């Protein structure tokens, strides 16, 4: 960590993010609020009228909602990866980025979790998918991947929220110490009586390692389970054993891109350059290059197996993806997810902010397309040619998708002004401990 930083400067720099926001912030919050309102209104309309106001039809029962669901679950993956796995591997550069990454996880899940409800025909009885004591003795069907999904998502949301809040405790305590009024109460609650005693630190660091160890398998399991929503079916293009690792690497890929997309503007807005350095971004870029090759490998394996298996249904679906109605989506995912990140082989591009943004945007779009292609093309061209068909894009469905993006960024903006976006205590861990010296520069 840069030598000019001190504990005190760190505290000052990283709590100034909570100062009274500027005008652009309110404008942004308002606009995103409008987006959320559009989404909420669309949902209400859909509940009252029926799911038919979205564009699904008979062959294509899952469409943009499930696409967006998988997209957000994927986004949610990098957070825990960066905070937990990299923590366990003692990767130092994670310290300044993990807080934002965790926020992306929690808000990503908070967004993704809405979609299983959104796409349900009768959302008012969604609780039937939960195991609860019921008079008739009816329980969910544990053979259904959708039930696994319910557990996977709720577990992940719980663990990542706890991890997020626990990691914040020492930082929140600093804010609490300076806050007054209701803020003091709020931060006091979040700080959970943190005093920074040696005993507390001893327990805290141990607990943090355990939590990290607990969260790590979830990174793998959650998206594996999400992938089984597809892989467990007999739909050509879905029914594939590669899906779990394929989805996990894709999830991390998209998550890293989203973290980058959030960090770069945030760094400029809050002037966090000393904390989130180009080195950090470069590390993320390298990671993105790695996941890009993993994802690319999965793409080729999928196509190869379709050819190698001699399974006519599987072959037909890949030919359809490449040359059928959605061919632009198919080819653009190759370009966006695999080819564009290859730029990061050159340091020049890894260090260039515009290129980082460009690649991150490309990967985000590409990963959305990837889920879209997997879900929609497979359903549109299944076994019975008579029942092939394309869905319709409606205003309501679009509204809900746009609403979900608004909702995510809305939550993030609120977070950025209420909680420290960079972990103070972990940054400080990497600094030289303050030595009381009588020197001019120290007192000035």
């Amino acid at each position: 960590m840069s030598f000019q930083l001190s504990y005190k400067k760190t505290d000052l720099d990283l709590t100034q993010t909570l100062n009274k926001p500027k005008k652009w912030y309110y404008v942004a919050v308002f606009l995103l609020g409008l987006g959320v309102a559009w989404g909420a209104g669309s949902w209400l309309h859909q509940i009252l009228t029926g799911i038919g106001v979205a564009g699904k039809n008979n062959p294509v029962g899952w469409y943009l909602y499930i696409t967006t669901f998988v997209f957000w679950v994927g986004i949610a993956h990098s957070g825990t990866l960066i905070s937990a796995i990299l923590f366990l591997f003692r990767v130092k550069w994670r310290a300044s980025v993990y807080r934002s990454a965790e926020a992306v996880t929690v808000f990503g899940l908070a967004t993704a979790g809405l979609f299983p409800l959104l796409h349900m025909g009768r959302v008012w009885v969604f609780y039937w998918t939960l195991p609860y004591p019921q008079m008739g003795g009816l329980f969910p069907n544990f053979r259904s991947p959708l039930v696994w999904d319910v557990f996977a998502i709720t577990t992940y949301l719980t663990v990542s929220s706890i991890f997020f809040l626990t990691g914040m405790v020492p930082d929140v305590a600093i804010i609490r110490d300076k806050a007054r009024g209701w803020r003091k109460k709020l931060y006091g609650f979040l700080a959970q009586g943190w005093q920074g005693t040696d005993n507390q630190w001893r327990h805290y660091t141990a607990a943090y390692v355990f939590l990290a160890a607990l969260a790590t398998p979830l990174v793998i399991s959650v998206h594996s389970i999400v992938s089984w929503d597809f892989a467990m079916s007999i739909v050509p293009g879905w029914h594939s054993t590669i899906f779990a690792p394929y989805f996990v690497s894709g999830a991390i890929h998209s998550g890293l891109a989203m973290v980058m997309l959030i960090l770069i503007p945030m760094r400029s807005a809050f002037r966090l350059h000393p904390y989130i350095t180009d080195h950090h971004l470069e590390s993320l870029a390298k990671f993105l290059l790695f996941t890009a090759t993993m994802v690319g490998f999965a793409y080729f394996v999928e196509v190869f197996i379709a050819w190698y298996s001699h399974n006519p249904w599987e072959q037909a679906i890949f030919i359809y993806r490449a040359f059928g109605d959605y061919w632009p989506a198919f080819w653009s995912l190759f370009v966006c997810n695999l080819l564009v990140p290859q730029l990061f082989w050159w340091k020049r591009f890894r260090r260039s902010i515009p290129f980082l943004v460009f690649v991150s945007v490309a990967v985000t779009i590409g990963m959305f397309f990837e889920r879209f292609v997997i879900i929609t093309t497979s359903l549109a061209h299944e076994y019975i040619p008579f029942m092939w068909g394309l869905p319709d894009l409606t205003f309501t469905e679009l509204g809900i998708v746009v609403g979900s993006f608004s909702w995510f960024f809305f939550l993030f903006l609120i977070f950025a002004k209420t909680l420290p976006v960079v972990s103070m205590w972990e940054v400080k861990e990497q600094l030289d401990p303050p030595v009381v010296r009588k020197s001019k520069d120290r007192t000035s």
Partner: protein
Amino acid sequence: MNLPRRDFLKIIGGATVATALPGCTPKKPQSLIPYVIPHEEIIPGKSVWYASVCRECPAGCGVHVRVREGRAVKVEGNPLHPVNRGTLCARGQASLHGLYNPDRLQHPLRKRPDGSWEQLTWEQAEELLVTELQRIVKERRGSRVAWMTPHLTGSLDALVDEFLTSLGSRRRLRYEPFGFETLKEANKATFGRSEIPMYDFARAQAIVSFGADFLETWVSPVSHAREFTETRTFNGKSVNRFVYVGPRLSLTATNADEWIAPVPGTEHLVALAVLDFILASGKATTSRTETRELQQSIRGISPAEVAEITGVNAERTRSLANMLLEAKPSLVVAGGPVIGNEYELQTLVAVNLINYVLGNIGTTVRFDEPLALSALGSYADLSRFAQSMEQGEISALFFTETNPVFTTAHRLNFGHAMTKIPLTVAFSSFMDETTAQAGLVLPIHTSLESWGDFEPTDGTTGLMQPAMQPVFRTTRMLGDLLIRLKEKITGRGTLSGSEQPFYEYVKARWRSVHRRTGTRQDFDGWWTERLANGGEFNPRRTTRLPVRLATRKYRFTSPQINDSDFTLVTYPSISLYDGRGANRPWLQELPDPMTQITWENWIEIHPSDAGKLGIKRGDIVKVVSDQDSIELPAYVYAGVRPGTVAVPIGQGHTEYGRYAKGNGANVISLLDPLPLQSSGSQEWSGLSVRLVKEDKTVPLADVAGSDYLHGRNIVQVVTVDELLRQTNELAEGKEKKEITFGEPGSPTLYPEHEHPDYRWGMTIDLDKCTGCSACVTACYAENNIPVVGKHQVEIGRELSWLRIERYFDDPPKDPSFPYFPNAEFLPMMCQQCDNAPCEPVCPVYASYHTPEGLNAQVYNRCVGTRYCANNCPYKVRRFNWFDYEFPEPLNWQLNPDVTVRSKGVMEKCTFCVQRIVEAKNSARLEGRPVADGDVTTACQQACPTQAIVFGDLKDPSSRVNALREKNKVRGYRVLEELNTQPAVVYLKEIRS
């Protein structure tokens, strides 16, 4: 006596209530709380069946109407009726949508001078009518009163005549748009008999049809379809051949072994060439002089010339002739709108001669049992009628259930002619185009609410009885009205004193039938029995002189071929017929079997023509004839001849209720108003039209995703040779059975489902399925399937649990190679898999496996994730995207045994589980297991060719198993390799 239990129950039910019915009159007060004092015959939850006659087309099939709690909920075929033998087509099923149509007229209406309607009471209306008629009689204009009816026979027909006679008039026109004038004219020209004979398809060893779509709309489609499949069944050695000659690949044509498309207007030359070959072969059954004379009258038409003009080479005509010569007896049928051109009469005469020289007259073409249809007037009669109206010769016009304003050419101006008549009275249930032109509209009962009788052939008389009390208490039975009017005007007669005059009238007429049968049973008992049976079926064969040629000299002419323009071919839609089905939502939503389009009509253009004009599917095309022009979306279809365009009749209503209005365009307006000189028929086809491509493209509301199989073995076809080879191998035990996955008992790691009592299954013989889609509408009727409307069909949300998948043969890779498409049909419903992909994926057990092997769907448990539908390889699950409406009183039709599903819920075929439960209940009450045949699914019940057989797979002697056993070589399961183990086995289609 061999009387199945179900039939026995139906008869008993029908009989008991029939005896009680005369007590029911519309005057009884209806209480909001029914059955405070329970009705003796009506047991809540028990169906009562009434026998009646279907009046949706002139065929006159017998029906059973299922009535629950006083409401008719389903119409099925009457097994005793000789025309349809228990089956029913889609239009017959949809007669309930006529009965419960929300756009039915409910009050007498009088037109004000400004064209708006004034509602009258019945007293006012009757008084108005009586004074008007009395004045006409007083002014001695009684002979200028005219009556127009559709094809009627029996009591109502007689009553209309009596009504006219009492006024001193004989102006009566029985008009049907498809009146088979040319057929009668040709029979008159050849045999001197202006009649429509009975065609016996069942006996024919080879069939050729010249444009007669007898599986869809021609004469009596249900009985023809049944007989046709009977004769086409594989007899162990071969199948009988069927060749279709006509400009368009219709449903009938695609069921043929060969489709020959000569240049429109040259069909008679093909027929003559065939006749020539037959006469030249020396194998004709005619005497030598007759043969020579016939040869002379057709001389001058050389085979080479014919081949050049018709585009059908001599080899094909020769093989056609040989095919007919080899088969004894054979049958050649001809006629119908698709060849309804100038030369139709010549075609039909030539066909008559072919039948004659082959000796088919008297065997497969029987003039000893002529159809009552023969009494219909012709289009020429109608146009003369219109002329006399225009000239003011008619002082009052009465009409019922006939819609000439819609079914005649725009330029005939029938509507305008009506305005020249001081008094036009419509006895009508619906505000159709003609009714809208009337001065006085009197709403009448539909046929399901009326008494009456109908005689398709002499001696086969169906008896109609009201299946329920009238839906609207303000409508009247036409017969009652006529009797009352007649007696009021003449001041004679006593029937109007009775509560149900027409019932008395019908009964009185049946007394003579009773006498004629010579039975010793007393009339009342006999009458009750006839009511329960649905009529008296004792066809009388007239023993008249043998049919001889009226003359041996015929004149045939070569047509003028017009190269520049397109030739228009019109054809009646299988579901809408002449347009009368257009206000039935079930029929609007029923996909046309060939194009799979719903809710509209279209213009069929050959791909090569479409390419030349730059027309693509869905492009709006303006069709211009010298009479009028209409705009229609294009359907590019290899099943029409190049240079020919085809348009179905039936859409394009400007009135006729919410479901009919505004769909498609009425092609009849393009036609020439002048009747054909030769036959007096409307010139349905052969008109030359111009096509102008408009700058607009619309989506077509079709339900077909892809028209082709893409090499997938979903519909399987076997050739006769292959079938024989495999059968022999099976017999010799040579057959080396590979391990097949997907059959019960095949290797698996998992325990199989146990079915302790029953396991329901189905066997569907694709060789018998003609694609007529009667089963689809039957399924809608039985299972409360909502109609979703055009836009929802466009975006793929039709809710049909059962669909007829239509696949064309793959087109050749080389586009220059001639492509003659042929369609195969596959009825696809839930396959009730033993290893169902839908079951494990449901998070809440809404789809689960019953102990009887059904994939049940628990509607009230479903949360609507749609995963089951995604995972269903057959794509037979349907989702309720909205809450669908059944506008009052259509909701009265809903089957009380079946849930009406709410929005957000998945639904699917249940193998009519409500019928299974009903059969199990009654079996239990009788202390026995369910016997084979106790349960009939709605689709099986309707199927005119009995292609669908349902039953218990655990019962080794059941029909469903017996069929599988007998046709082992042909049996297959769709997508067998997925190991879903469906309970539905299809038998491969046989191609000769």
